[in-house]
């Protein structure tokens, strides 16, 4: 089956290491051109059907985002960074906006904070639904693939109503948000929340309570509390292992300290717990959306400092239609020199930004640590010992998103 010795000599490339693998082991490359891998590769070595070693191999969708950010104006970095996780656009760029605000020493108005939380939670639901859909198809459950993908549309449309864009909203900008809540949004959100609550019951019936699925997930890919802490796992995967760590609780940002919500925790740490935690988080997010719409204070969604420098027409348009155009000031926003760090809880976990400015219109350095990147290491440690068929189950349960990890 293996290549002839002559061929082996031929493929020696400079800088390419050939790794010897154990006798009787079979090396299988899952990805990057594999229906069950996504834009990454997991190199597994199997003994029969049991995986002995697993190497996650990242970087297939690396887009040099951090370097690209150094050549762009501060406002243009937001649409760039959104490409990391377009379903989670607000969550994934919010810390950047916060870091820039810290450098500029401005605080967004309270209404803007609530609006940001609103979109963050809509994004979180959409992101979880996407993850659950992929999870479903990895287990061969086509209904669980189609349902969340169809229901995600509800929240994508909700986001569109709020921001004008389906996916890459660029909603949070330094100093506030781009536009105010439109008319009829509350009713739409309430309807979406009621619909989603009903659908979550359906998911439970067809997927989570399905005996075939339970057999595949229970006690598969267990991340112990200890291992999770040691590897630095973040997000729902960490909380499914019984560790209570959520940036929204540990270090409340925006309006999260004024909102009453729970963070679901599961002790088991297996794939089944990770499936459940997303469902519970969606429930909490719906709760947050309802509270935000109730508690949201009146006022301007953008900081006065920006209005002061805006042309008069912009203010009139905003006051009559409720829609604000992006104020020209942003095009050449000069951020005072300094270094700021900010973090937020994105759909897949904690995302951290370090922004360094030199009092110019472009950042000197933008460093991102994305949640999927921190979760990727988990494959190396929990996949060995499982069967080949468990790999998609584990991969789906981790909700690993290659574009987010590779940046």
């Amino acid at each position, binding site marked *: 089956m293996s290549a002839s010795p002559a061929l082996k000599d031929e493929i020696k490339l400079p800088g390419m290491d050939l790794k010897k693998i154990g006798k009787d082991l079979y090396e299988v490359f899952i990805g990057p051109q594999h229906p069950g891998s996504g834009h990454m590769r997991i190199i597994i070595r199997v003994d029969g059907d049991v995986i002995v070693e697993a190497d996650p191999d990242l970087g297939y969708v690396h887009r040099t985002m951090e370097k690209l950010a150094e050549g762009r104006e501060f406002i243009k970095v937001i649409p760039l960074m959104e490409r990391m996780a377009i379903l989670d656009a607000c969550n994934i760029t919010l810390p950047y906006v916060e870091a820039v605000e810290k450098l500029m020493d401005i605080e967004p108005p309270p209404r803007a904070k609530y609006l940001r939380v609103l979109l963050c939670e809509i994004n979180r639901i959409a992101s979880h639904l996407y993850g659950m859909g992929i999870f479903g198809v990895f287990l061969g459950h086509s209904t669980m693939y189609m349902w969340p993908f169809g229901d995600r549309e509800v929240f994508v449309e909700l986001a569109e109503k709020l921001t004008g864009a389906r996916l890459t909203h660029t909603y949070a900008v330094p100093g506030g948000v781009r536009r105010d809540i439109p008319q009829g949004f509350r009713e739409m959100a309430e309807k979406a929340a009621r619909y989603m609550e009903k659908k979550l019951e359906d998911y439970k019936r067809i997927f989570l309570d399905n005996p*075939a699925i339970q*057999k595949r997930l229970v006690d598969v890919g267990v991340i112990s509390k200890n291992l999770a802490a040691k590897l630095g796992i973040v997000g729902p995967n960490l909380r499914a292992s019984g560790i209570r760590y959520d940036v929204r609780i540990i270090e409340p940002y925006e309006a999260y300290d004024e909102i009453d919500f729970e963070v679901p925790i599961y002790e088991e740490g297996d794939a089944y717990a990770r499936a459940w935690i997303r469902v519970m988080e969606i429930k909490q997010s719906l709760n947050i959306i309802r509270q935000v719409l109730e508690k949201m204070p009146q006022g301007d969604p953008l900081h006065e400092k920006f209005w002061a420098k805006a042309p008069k027409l912009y203010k009139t348009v905003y006051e009559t239609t409720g829609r604000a155009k992006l104020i020209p000031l942003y095009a050449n926003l000069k951020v005072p020199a300094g270094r700021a760090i900010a973090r937020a809880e994105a759909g897949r976990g904690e995302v951290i930004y370090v922004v360094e400015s030199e009092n110019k219109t472009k950042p000197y350095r933008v460093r991102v640590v994305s949640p999927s990147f921190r979760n990727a290491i988990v494959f190396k440690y929990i996949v060995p010992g499982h*069967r080949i068929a468990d790999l998609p189950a584990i991969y789906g349960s981790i909700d690993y998103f290659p574009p987010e990890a590779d940046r």
Partner: protein
Amino acid sequence: MTGIIDFIIKLIIWPPLFQLVLLPGLVTALVVVIFIIWFERKTAARVQMRIGPYHISPRLGGFLQLIADLTRYAFQEIIVPRTVDRAVFIGAPLTALVLSVVPVVAMPMTDIPRYFPIPMDYSLIISMGLTTLSPIFIVAAAWASNNKFALIGGMREAFVITAYELIFIISGLSAGLAVLSYNIVDIVEAQAPFYKWILFTNPIAALAMYASILMSTSGFPFEIPEAENEIVAGAFTEYSGLMYGVNMGSAYIKRFVYTLLFSLLFLGGWAPYTPQPGFIAGYLIPAVIVVVKATIVMATISFLRAVYGRLRIDQALDGAWRIFIPIALAGLLLALLEAYMGVYA
């Protein structure tokens, strides 16, 4: 000239050829398979909040989409990789396709011996024996592919074969045991009244046979040998174009043949109808009744796709050896009891 036409007509109506090629053989199987795939897509779509393929022939509900797909497969390039064992790579799927339809020759579609391909008293055993021929060629095709995923898929197929065949044969034989005959005609005739269908008198054996059909033809939740997200396309990873279509087609034809046997053994065959003399009343109508019953059974198998995920290979084997073989044996015991009490005497 008339002699040739007579010869052709006689050849077509010659039972072995007619049964193997036209009804319920290859041609019927193809029509049923096209219907089943359409049904599978549409029911899954209905469950999953979609409409399914619709663009081609919207008036027929997208029924012709399958023909379009078939045409696409037919004109796609057939890539034969350099590293494969050419003869086996091409020969094995074709052999499997032919062999998957062969069990039909031993399945009588009527009780009039004139229309039997081969009149025999052991048709149950012969037909079940013939069904065990084709799977080995899938393993051979996987081995010849010289691909890691194909090899894993072939091994899975081999494991599943060893697991389901015993269940299939035990539960099939229990139908014969209850009637005390290995002749399918006797088995069907014993089930003439509706309440005497073996499905009702021996549901345990029927369940075991249904499960073994699911397992043997990669129906959910046993869609393991070609699990897409794990091993690409299993044994068929290296196949493309029409050769891939042949592989898929033989899997569906296999399922059709199994369900034909299932409807003969458990669903009363041509039951409410009694064949009358003449070709149409004596062969065509009972055969169509059996085919319709088999199609309904296939449709239930297709529907399971929308409900279940995929089990792991070890779980499926575990279920086969520890749950379904005891169930099949219990069905055999029940059949023995019924034979002793003379339910079908």
